């Protein structure tokens, strides 16, 4: 397989487009699962539901709670999609990376952490109990998933001996990392759901707190938060492909297509998991994150480090 190279400058502009397409596909798939659970037929309208919902939110009036901190709330809302797209910058699409940063893995980590601040601001800024509780729930979720997430990333970096995503892809020539780092892969998938506050990790926007962070956002603000959530999930799925599933390697098809297909498959898996689970309450998950996930991912890192020594 040809090694991943730095693309021309304009390829940067492909990142939001590809990521947006992937996110839209994921959202459509979620609607399909919903429709099947409801016993409705899957029609074109169901597939296009994310688009029509976008239209609906664009038309909807914006609202703000009295005496709310609109500056913080809007900053938080805007930061979610922006951080998602920036995180996806280092993902190689086939053998072209829009930007192959030498510290790509740390960059992904840093951009994903932006959602901590963003969601907290978006919740606190609404001056509503629901938003407040949701924002705080996301912070404690972050405190619990972040270390296993980092250890998964470090395990990959150890395996490749580099923080550069293209080196990670090159190191998987022959044997994908998922084969000998299954625990890290699982931890990464868990944290992919957690960092995009989706699926079993949606306490921050739970129905039990009337939507939490989302409770008081409507119109275009709500649109950006929801879009940002899908973009984050898509970015994490694409990153999982580069880190664990050999990037664009595969027979017959061009490498970029393999990347897209694998990303879509991982995203589909995440969306399916999301639909099949109940929300994990944070008063339970904190302890699991610290006492189960951290030791497991540490052991995985140890195994990989020993293997790398040879």
């Amino acid at each position, binding site marked *: 397989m040809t090694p991943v190279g730095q693309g021309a400058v304009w390829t940067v502009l492909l990142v939001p487009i590809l990521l947006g397409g992937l996110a839209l596909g994921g959202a459509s798939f979620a609607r399909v699962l919903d429709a099947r659970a409801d016993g409705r037929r899957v029609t074109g309208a169901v597939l296009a539901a994310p688009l029509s919902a976008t239209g609906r939110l664009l038309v909807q009036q914006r609202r703000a709670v009295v005496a709310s901190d609109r500056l913080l709330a809007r900053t938080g809302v805007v930061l979610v999609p922006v951080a998602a797209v920036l995180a996806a910058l280092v993902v190689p699409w086939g053998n072209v990376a829009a930007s192959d940063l030498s510290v790509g893995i740390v960059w992904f980590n840093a951009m994903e952490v932006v959602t901590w601040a963003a969601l907290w601001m978006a919740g606190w800024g609404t001056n509503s109990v629901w938003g407040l509780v949701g924002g705080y729930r996301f912070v404690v979720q972050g*405190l619990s998933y972040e270390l296993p997430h980092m250890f998964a990333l470090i395990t990959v970096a150890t395996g490749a001996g580099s923080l550069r995503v293209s080196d990670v892809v090159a190191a998987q020539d022959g044997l994908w990392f998922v084969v000998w780092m299954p625990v890290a892969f699982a931890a990464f998938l868990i944290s992919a759901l957690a960092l995009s506050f989706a699926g079993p990790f949606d306490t921050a926007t739970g129905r039990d707190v009337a939507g939490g962070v989302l409770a008081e956002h409507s119109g275009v603000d709500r649109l950006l938060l929801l879009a940002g959530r899908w973009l984050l999930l898509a970015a994490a799925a694409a990153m999982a492909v580069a880190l664990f599933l050999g990037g664009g390697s595969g027979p017959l098809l061009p490498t970029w297509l393999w990347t897209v297909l694998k990303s879509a498959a991982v995203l589909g898996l995440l969306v399916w998991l999301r639909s099949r689970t109940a929300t994990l309450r944070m008063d339970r998950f904190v302890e699991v994150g610290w006492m189960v996930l951290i030791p497991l991912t540490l052991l995985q890192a140890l195994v990989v480090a020993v293997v790398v020594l040879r």
Partner: protein
Amino acid sequence: MQSEFAPVLLLLVATVAAVAATYGVAALVRWAPGVLVVDPFSSGMAPEEHAVSRHHVRWYTVTMVFLAFDMEMVFMYPWAVVVAQVGPKAVVEMFGFLAVLMVGVVYAWREGTFRWT
């Protein structure tokens, strides 16, 4: 800019422009302009006070344990890059370091830090 971060700047500008465009489109197609200022949703009751007050979190010790544990990331990312070259010494040292921290975490667990109290 010779730095490798030039594409980051470009993408940042492009994304912010896209977000601004979304706001712009919304402003054009919205049926009702402006921002509706409302009371917070309280199941149909009138709110009794502003929600933004001192918010007591019951898991604040977790934040401190996290900050301490998190510091080892500063070392661990560069460690991951060199471990193959440096050899067994690097593995022993890093995991010794982590084992010490893990003992601290287990201690904190026994004290009930990871529970809402």
